[in-house]
């Protein structure tokens, strides 16, 4: 929900291609490994083999930085020289395993149902065992040695690659495009090479990189156990094993090959990380707005205590990678006790962000500012954070659009209903439950006791929304902000919820800010209507006048696009051409001007203020429409 309110981050392509520090580090580490693998044996190879029986099992010295082994060979040279063998074996095992696994896994994409299931369960069976254990098993079978260890490890990594390929290929196999390829009668191996593999190459490359790191560690482990490389050959695992035998006397001969293994493993890990990040960059987080907070309060205006909510000049700013966007650009609204006020507009007009700003629930990237913001007669800027939280939690209730996702799936309804009252009103558990039963009856939900014990997935959509409203009512709020509370519900349930809100207003004089894009519903339920467009309020009028007396071209267009209101059934329903303005770069003129059929020169240059037309009707338009649309009037008389 929140995500849909925010502008999308631009795709990777729109940013300059600069390597991140992590990518630079990964490339540098990989380069150093490559250098050691190629040049290591050439530079240090002879030193690594030179026997010196006068200097056996020495500790670190100037001549031998890591010490010497039991034949007096320099261990530093041996660790560096071993880079080539360690890497070559790891890469060989990974590639063998990857090729075999991909072939095995992609077979399932091209064979039919029964064989696919069989191959799938075979992979499942093998996957139950860790690769290292499988590799050890086969290493024992193949006999100790480098070739045996590589084959064993390749076999151990087949199931993982096969599973990944199966999953990815199944995704490709289900596409229309594969169905079309089958219809065209392409042969199986051609399907595999031409269509399946290219579509799954990227995740496979990522997995291969990470697997190469694990293979290096596993091969070192096999050598460490004595199952891998045998003397006179040597790799890091074998050097570590020899070093460990004398770790009591000299730690360095064990630590040096250990560090080499860690360095190489980290290199592959980092490469994988960089590849994964490149693939996932389009989901990157948005930067924050620098220094945008609530403006200091201006001289306190005369207290108007008969309002439950009074906000002047509310703005919301959101930081995006392309600059600061202003989806709400300075709106003022006030609600009296018992008043139901509608806030209508298309999606993207800033309605929901206004609601979230009033409830102080904006996402992290968004900042609200205002000239005045008085909740229940108290200026929120003068309240302590604790008092403000309490005021918001008890005085204001929020009802969100989708009751299916707004209730916590793993908590009982009873807990979700009572927790706010217990936290802020200090009710005991039993008192809170008693009140919850009463409240559930009030929102016309039967058998409250059973309901309190159930979880959200056991309720219907309408029941859930009633529960949401009941949750809000538990703290006896003076104001309910309902953000599209009926949009996700079917028409019959919509009517019930609307009736419920009416009843609540009647009983407790609770004010309701009803946010909706459904003009007909708003006209039916509300006392007053605020029409929002491009982050501004463009018209404000009594709900009874909405169908007949709207003066702003946008409001008129909204009304004419609503099937319930435009009574003239012979005319086609109107749609509004064009798109709402971009909140990143609003123009100087009227926000509706590019889509307006009645625009004139001044509209693009100067922003029209809200001007009073009398009887609670105000409009922001240089050229308001004539008082009534003739065709509607005609239909009504």
């Amino acid at each position, binding site marked *: 929900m*929140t*995500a849909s309110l925010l502008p999308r981050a631009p795709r990777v392509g729109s940013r300059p291609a600069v390597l991140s520090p992590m990518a630079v580090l990964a490339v540098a580490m990989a380069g150093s490994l490559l250098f050691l693998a190629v040049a290591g044996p050439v530079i240090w190879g002879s030193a690594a083999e030179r026997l010196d029986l006068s200097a056996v099992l020495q500790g670190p010295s100037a001549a031998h930085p890591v010490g010497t082994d039991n034949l007096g060979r320099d261990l530093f040279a041996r660790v560096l020289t071993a880079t080539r063998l360690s890497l070559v074996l790891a890469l060989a095992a990974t590639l063998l395993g990857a090729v075999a696994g991909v072939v095995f896994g992609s077979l399932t994409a091209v064979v039919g149902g029964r064989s696919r299931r069989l191959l799938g369960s075979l992979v499942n069976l093998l996957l139950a065992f*860790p690769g290292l*254990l499988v590799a*050890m098993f086969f290493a024992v079978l193949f006999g100790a040695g480098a070739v045996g260890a590589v084959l064993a490890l390749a076999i151990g990594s087949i199931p993982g690659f096969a599973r990944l390929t199966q999953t990815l290929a199944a995704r490709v196999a289900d596409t229309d495009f594969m169905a079309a390829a089958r219809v065209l009668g392409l042969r199986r191996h051609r399907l595999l090479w031409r269509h399946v593999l290219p579509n799954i190459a990227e995740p496979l490359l990522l997995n291969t990189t990470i697997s190469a790191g694990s293979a290096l560690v596993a091969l070192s482990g096999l050598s460490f156990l004595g199952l891998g490389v045998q003397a006179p050959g040597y790799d890091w695992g074998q050097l570590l094993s020899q070093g460990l035998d004398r770790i009591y006397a000299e730690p360095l001969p064990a630590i040096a090959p250990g560090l080499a293994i860690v360095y190489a493993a980290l290199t592959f890990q980092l490469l994988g*990380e960089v590849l994964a990040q490149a693939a996932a960059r389009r989901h990157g987080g948005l930067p924050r707005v620098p220094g945008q907070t609530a403006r200091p309060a201006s001289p306190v205006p005369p207290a108007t205590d008969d309002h439950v909510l009074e906000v002047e000049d509310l703005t919301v700013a959101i930081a995006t990678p392309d600059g600061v966007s202003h989806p709400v650009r300075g709106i003022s609204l006030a609600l009296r006790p018992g008043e139901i006020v509608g806030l209508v507009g298309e999606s993207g007009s800033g309605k929901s962000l206004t609601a979230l700003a009033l409830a102080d629930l904006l996402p*992290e990237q968004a900042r609200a500012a205002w000239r005045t913001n008085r909740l229940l007669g108290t200026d929120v800027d003068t309240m302590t954070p604790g008092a403000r939280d309490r005021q918001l939690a008890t005085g204001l209730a929020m009802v969100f659009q989708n009751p299916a996702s707004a209730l916590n799936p793993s908590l009982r309804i009873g807990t979700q209903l009572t*927790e706010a009252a217990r*936290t802020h009103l200090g009710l005991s558990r039993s008192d809170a439950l008693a009140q919850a039963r009463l409240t559930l009856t009030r929102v016309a939900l039967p058998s409250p006791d059973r309901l309190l014990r159930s979880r959200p997935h056991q309720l219907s959509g309408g029941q859930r929304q009633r529960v*949401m409203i009941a949750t809000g009512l538990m703290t006896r709020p003076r104001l309910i902000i309902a953000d599209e509370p009926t949009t996700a519900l079917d028409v019959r349930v919509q009517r019930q919820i609307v009736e419920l809100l009416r009843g609540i207003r009647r009983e407790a004089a609770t004010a309701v800010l009803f946010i909706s894009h459904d003009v007909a519903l708003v006209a039916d339920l509300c006392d007053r209507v605020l029409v929002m467009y491009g982050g501004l309020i463009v018209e404000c009028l009594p709900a009874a006048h909405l169908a007949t007396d709207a003066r702003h071209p946008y409001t008129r267009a909204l009304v004419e696009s609503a099937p319930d209101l435009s009574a003239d059934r012979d005319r086609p329903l109107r749609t509004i051409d064009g798109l709402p303005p971009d909140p990143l770069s609003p123009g100087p003129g009227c926000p509706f001007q590019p889509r307006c059929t009645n625009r004139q020169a001044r509209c693009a240059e100067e922003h029209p203020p809200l001007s009073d037309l009398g009887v609670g009707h105000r409009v922001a338009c240089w050229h308001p429409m004539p008082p009534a649309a003739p065709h509607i009037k005609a239909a009504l008389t």
Partner: protein
Amino acid sequence: MTGMSDMTARLAVLARRHPWSTFCCRRAVRLTVSLCAVLTGSFAMIHLIPGDPVRAALGIDAAPGLVAARRHQLGLDQPLVAQFRHYLSGLAHGDLGVSLVTGLPVAELLRTRLPATLEIAALAFLCTVLVAFPAGLLAAIRTRDGRHPRSELVFTAATAALTGLPDFVLAAGLTAGLAVGLELFPIAGGTGARSLVLPVLALALAPTAVLARIVRVEALKVLAEDYVRTARAKRLPAVVLYLRHVAPNMLVGSLTIAGNLLPALIAGTVLVEKVFAWPGVGSALAQSVVAHDYPVVQAMALVLGTVVLVANFLVDLLLGLLDPRSTIREM
């Protein structure tokens, strides 16, 4: 034919009425099939080895008479089917054969070794879960909505580095640093609670890092949910918000990953036990592999494979209990 379809229909009804028991049955069948595979694999091992395993174990210069006697003792001179039957009936009676090197019964070795391995594996898994959950959740809370990008970088880099640390290399490093260098812990062997610290640490560190990352991602997903916004609107204390509204919803996803880490952790005991000379199954396996003591290798492979399968099974059942909806969905 009609009887068959009748039966299927009846089973389907049963499955709908008792989703949890049906789920358990399915998992039990899967476990049984996998156990059969492990049994066959461990039996086949000794026959698939190229050359003569007895000759390999006793050395090239062993007397032919001794080799023949050992072959007979192991039953290797009998037909394959008879051997398999003998192997299975032996297992049923707790007879796992005799070590080629020491001549002692393998079952006896296992009885002393298995508890030690289970001890460090279970402790390491417990530490992994107990540390990774709070760490991942705290990291998610701190870095949600793109807050504190620097903390996120540190967390990601640190966990990535720890993930890349191989357990046996870490074990060697810990030995060098904390046991030999600072003399804080015993270098090797299983002597009391203090000797547990290093093996458990070596086993647990990498899985903890992996799990903490997963927990963070899962928690970030939950933090972006509508119901968390509902909870925020109630202005609950932070502890209630995160422990009551966030934690339960990320539990199943994270525990699934934790369950997947368990087999690798058990396999890791083989190498870590060798470093610390920990008297468990792993070090016995490592020794017997080098000594070509195949009956022991066979038994230890069987036991480790079984432990992995049973651990998987238990984790599956636990997840099914925690999230009944996913159990039903999967069927």
